[in-house]
C-alpha cells in the first residue's frame, strides 16, 4: 500500500489528491530539490544519497545525454559537449556574455535565432541555455516524483535577486520544458530567509549574505509576523568560492616557482586548492601533495593564518556591496537584527568572522548553507500548493533597476523606482507633443540614469489612433505592471478615445549582474552630470516648441504684426536657434526668455482677436453660463 505522510490539522487530502510540490534551487554549480514532508522541509537525495546535483549536462549523441556527477567527470575529455554553469547564459545574447573565448563552447551567433538568446553547438545539435537547464530540472523532477510517489502539482524555482525579466522568463521556460508547473519564481535570498524565518519564528530586519561558487549577493529583508519584504539587493557577480581556490592555486605557483602550466595541471592544482580550502574550515593546516604532468612534485602545507592572509582582500570585497545595500535600504548596521549565511563559501571561518565583525553579531549558520535556499523554496511551494492553512503569507520582492519610458528629448521618465516591492502597478499620464499627433511611440527602459542613451532599452511599441488634437490635449495613461515573478507588462491608453496598446516585456536579452552593478555605480557617479544634461534637454525641448509655436502664429496672424515687430521676433528666434547649438542650459534659458518677451504683445493681440472672433455675432444671452 501507499506510504502516507502526516498532514497539518484539517489538511488531509483525499486519496490520490496529494498536492505534491517541491522547491528547486537551480544553481550555477549545483542544483537541489526539496519538499515539505511530515511538516518538515527536507532536501531529497538521489539513490546514492547525494543531495547536490552538479549543474552539468553532457550530450553524448542526438538521443543520449547525462546530467550531474557523471557529466561533470567527463568535462575535460569532452569539453564542447559538456555544458556547465549554463545559468550564466540564461536569457543572454552573445553580446551580453562578453569574452566568449573564456568558454570551451561553440557559440552560435545566428541573427535569425529566436529572441536573441545564445545557443551552443553540441553533438546533439544547437542547444539553448533553456534546453540545457531543462535537462537538469528534468532529473530533479524525476527524483522528486520517485521520492514522493506521485506527480508534482508544481515547483517553486529560485533565481538570483538580480535576475532581470529575460533571465526569469528563460528560467520559467526551462521549467515548462522539463514538465514542471512553476508555482512561482523566488529570489534566492528570500528563500533562505523563509527557511530561517519560519523555522526560528524570527522577526525584524535581516541581511542575507550569499557567497556561492562564483557569485556574491547581499539582500536586506524585513520579516514581521510572517511577512517578508526585500528592502534592497546588491552584489558582485564575479566573486565567489572559486576565487578563494584560485588564491591558494596562485600561492602554490609562487611557492613552487611554477608558471605556464598545461590545462590538466591547472585543473589538478585547483582541485587540490579546493580540497585544502575545505580542510582549513575544520583544521589548522592542510597539506597539498600533487604530481604534475612534468613529473614535478608539489608538496606544501598551508596553514589557516596564511590562507586568511592571502584571501583577506576577497573577504573585504564583499563588504562594499553590504554597505551599498544598507544605504539603499536607508538602514544602519545597528538596525540589522540577524544575518543569514547562504552558499558553501560561507563555511570558511574568516568569512563568518568578517561578516560577524561587520554586523557586530554572530551570523546564523545552523542550517546547511548549501541547502538553505532549496529548503525555503520547498516551504513556499508547500504553501502555494495549498497544504498549509490559516496563514496569510505575503512575499514581497523588489525590482533591481528603475523602469520607465522615454519622453521628448531622450529623457527617461521613471514610473517604477528601483527597490519598489513587487507585485506593483504604477500609472502616469503623458500627452502629445505636436498638434494633430495621432500616434505615440512608447519606449520602455530600465536604469537609473536621466538620459535614455545611458539606460537599457527593454521594448518599444506604438499607440496609434489617437484623435487629432492640439499638442498637450491628449491624455495618454501609461501603466506599468510588474507581476510577482518580476515580469513587466506595459499598457498605454488614450483616455478620450479609449484606444489602447499593450506589450509584455520579455526582453530578448537583458543585463548581466555586472552591468546592473555598473549602471548603479554610474548613476551615483554621474548624478550631477545627469542633472545638467536633463536641464539642458528640457530647455532644448522648450526652445523648439516655442519656435514652432511662434512661427505658426506668425503665418496664421501675420496681419497683427508690424514689420518692425516681425523683424524683432525673427531676430530673437535666430538667437534661440544659435543658443540651441551650444550646450549651455542657462544661456538657452535666457534666449527663450528674450523670445517670450518680444512676443508678449503679439500673443496679447492674438488673444484679443480670438476672443472677439468667438463673441462676434452672438447675443449676450447665448453667452450666459448655464
Amino acid at each position, binding site marked *: *500500500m501507499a*506510504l502516507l505522510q*502526516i498532514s*497539518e490539522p484539517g489538511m488531509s487530502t483525499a*486519496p*490520490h489528491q496529494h498536492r505534491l510540490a517541491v522547491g528547486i534551487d537551480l544553481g550555477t554549480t549545483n542544483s537541489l530539490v526539496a519538499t515539505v514532508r511530515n511538516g518538515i522541509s527536507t532536501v531529497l*537525495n538521489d539513490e546514492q544519497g547525494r543531495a547536490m546535483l552538479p549543474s552539468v549536462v553532457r550530450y553524448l549523441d542526438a538521443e543520449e545525454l547525462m546530467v550531474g556527477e557523471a557529466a561533470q567527470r567527463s568535462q575535460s575529455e569532452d569539453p564542447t559537449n559538456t555544458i556547465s554553469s549554463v545559468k550564466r547564459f540564461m536569457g543572454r545574447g552573445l553580446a551580453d556574455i562578453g569574452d566568449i573565448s573564456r568558454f570551451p563552447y561553440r557559440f552560435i551567433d545566428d541573427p535569425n535565432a529566436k529572441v536573441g538568446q545564445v545557443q551552443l553547438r553540441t553533438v546533439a545539435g544547437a542547444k539553448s541555455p533553456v534546453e540545457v537547464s531543462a535537462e537538469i530540472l528534468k532529473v530533479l523532477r524525476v527524483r522528486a516524483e520517485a521520492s514522493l510517489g506521485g506527480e508534482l502539482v508544481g515547483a517553486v524555482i529560485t533565481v538570483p535577486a538580480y535576475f532581470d525579466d529575460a533571465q526569469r522568463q528563460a528560467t520559467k521556460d526551462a521549467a515548462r520544458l522539463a514538465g514542471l508547473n512553476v508555482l512561482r519564481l523566488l529570489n534566492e535570498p528570500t528563500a533562505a530567509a523563509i527557511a530561517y524565518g519560519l523555522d526560528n519564528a524570527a522577526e525584524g530586519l535581516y541581511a542575507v549574505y550569499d557567497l556561492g561558487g562564483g557569485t556574491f549577493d547581499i539582500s536586506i529583508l524585513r520579516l514581521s509576523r510572517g511577512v517578508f519584504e526585500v528592502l534592497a539587493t546588491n552584489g558582485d557577480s564575479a566573486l565567489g568560492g572559486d576565487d578563494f581556490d584560485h588564491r591558494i592555486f596562485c600561492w602554490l605557483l609562487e611557492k613552487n616557482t611554477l608558471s605556464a602550466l598545461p590545462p590538466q595541471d591547472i585543473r589538478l592544482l585547483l582541485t587540490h586548492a579546493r580540497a585544502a580550502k575545505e580542510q582549513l574550515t575544520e583544521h589548522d593546516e592542510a597539506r597539498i601533495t600533487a604530481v604534475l604532468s612534468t613529473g614535478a612534485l608539489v608538496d606544501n602545507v598551508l596553514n589557516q593564518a596564511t590562507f586568511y592572509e592571502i584571501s583577506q582582500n576577497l573577504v573585504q570585497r564583499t563588504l562594499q556591496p553590504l554597505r551599498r545595500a544598507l544605504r539603499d535600504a536607508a538602514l544602519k548596521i545597528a538596525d540589522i537584527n540577524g544575518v543569514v549565511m547562504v552558499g558553501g563559501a560561507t563555511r570558511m571561518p574568516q568569512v563568518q568572522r568578517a561578516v560577524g565583525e561587520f554586523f557586530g553579531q554572530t551570523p546564523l549558520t545552523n542550517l546547511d548553507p548549501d541547502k538553505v535556499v532549496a529548503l525555503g523554496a520547498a516551504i513556499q511551494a508547500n504553501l502555494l500548493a495549498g497544504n498549509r492553512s490559516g496563514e496569510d503569507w505575503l512575499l514581497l520582492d523588489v525590482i533591481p533597476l528603475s523602469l520607465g519610458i522615454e519622453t521628448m528629448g531622450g529623457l527617461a521618465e521613471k514610473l517604477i523606482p528601483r527597490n519598489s516591492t513587487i507585485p506593483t502597478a504604477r500609472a502616469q499620464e503623458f500627452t502629445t507633443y505636436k498638434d494633430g499627433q495621432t500616434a505615440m511611440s512608447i519606449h520602455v527602459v530600465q536604469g537609473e540614469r536621466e538620459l535614455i542613451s545611458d539606460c537599457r532599452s527593454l521594448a518599444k511599441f506604438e499607440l496609434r489612433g489617437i484623435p487629432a488634437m492640439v499638442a498637450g490635449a491628449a491624455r495618454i495613461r501609461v501603466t506599468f505592471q510588474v507581476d510577482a515573478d518580476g515580469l513587466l507588462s506595459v499598457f498605454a491608453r488614450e483616455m478620450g478615445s479609449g484606444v489602447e496598446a499593450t506589450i509584455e516585456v520579455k526582453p530578448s536579452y537583458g543585463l548581466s549582474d555586472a552591468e546592473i552593478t555598473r549602471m548603479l555605480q554610474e548613476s551615483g557617479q554621474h548624478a550631477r552630470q545627469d542633472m545638467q544634461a536633463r536641464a539642458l534637454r528640457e530647455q532644448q525641448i522648450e526652445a523648439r516648441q516655442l519656435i514652432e509655436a511662434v512661427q505658426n502664429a506668425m503665418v496664421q496672424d501675420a496681419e497683427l504684426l508690424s514689420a518692425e515687430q516681425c523683424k524683432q521676433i525673427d531676430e530673437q528666434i535666430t538667437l534661440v536657434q544659435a543658443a540651441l547649438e551650444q550646450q549651455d542650459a542657462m544661456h538657452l534659458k535666457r534666449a527663450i526668455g528674450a523670445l517670450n518677451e518680444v512676443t508678449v504683445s503679439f500673443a496679447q493681440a492674438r488673444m484679443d482677436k480670438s476672443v472677439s472672433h468667438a463673441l462676434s455675432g452672438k447675443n449676450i444671452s447665448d453667452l450666459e453660463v448655464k
Partner: protein
Amino acid sequence: MGISLTEAAAKHVQNFIAKRGKGLGLRIGVRTTGCSGMAYKLEFADALSDDDMQFQSHGVTLLVDPKSLPYIDGMELDFQREGLNEGFKFNNPNVKNECGCGESFQV
C-alpha cells in the same frame, strides 16, 4: 485494543513533532471518501477535543475520534522506506478490500 505505532514510526513522529515545534501528538482517523470507500486521515494534533480517544505508544500520544475507531481498531502504524520514498504504512486488521494503491479501503 486501540491503535499503536511501531518503534520506528514512533521515533519518526517524535522527530517530526520536535522539528515542527508544536503538537500534542498524532490524529488518526478515517473519512468516507476515495475510490474504495474509506480513506485514512493522518495529521498533527494541536488541540484535543472532548470525545477524543487517547492511546499511548512508545511515548507518542495518538488521538482517534470514537466514530473512526471501529474501522481502525487494532491497527499498527509503521514507518517504511520504499526506494526513494518513505512514509507511514497502516497495518489495519479490519480491512477486507483496498484499492490498488491502498490509500482507500473497505471493511
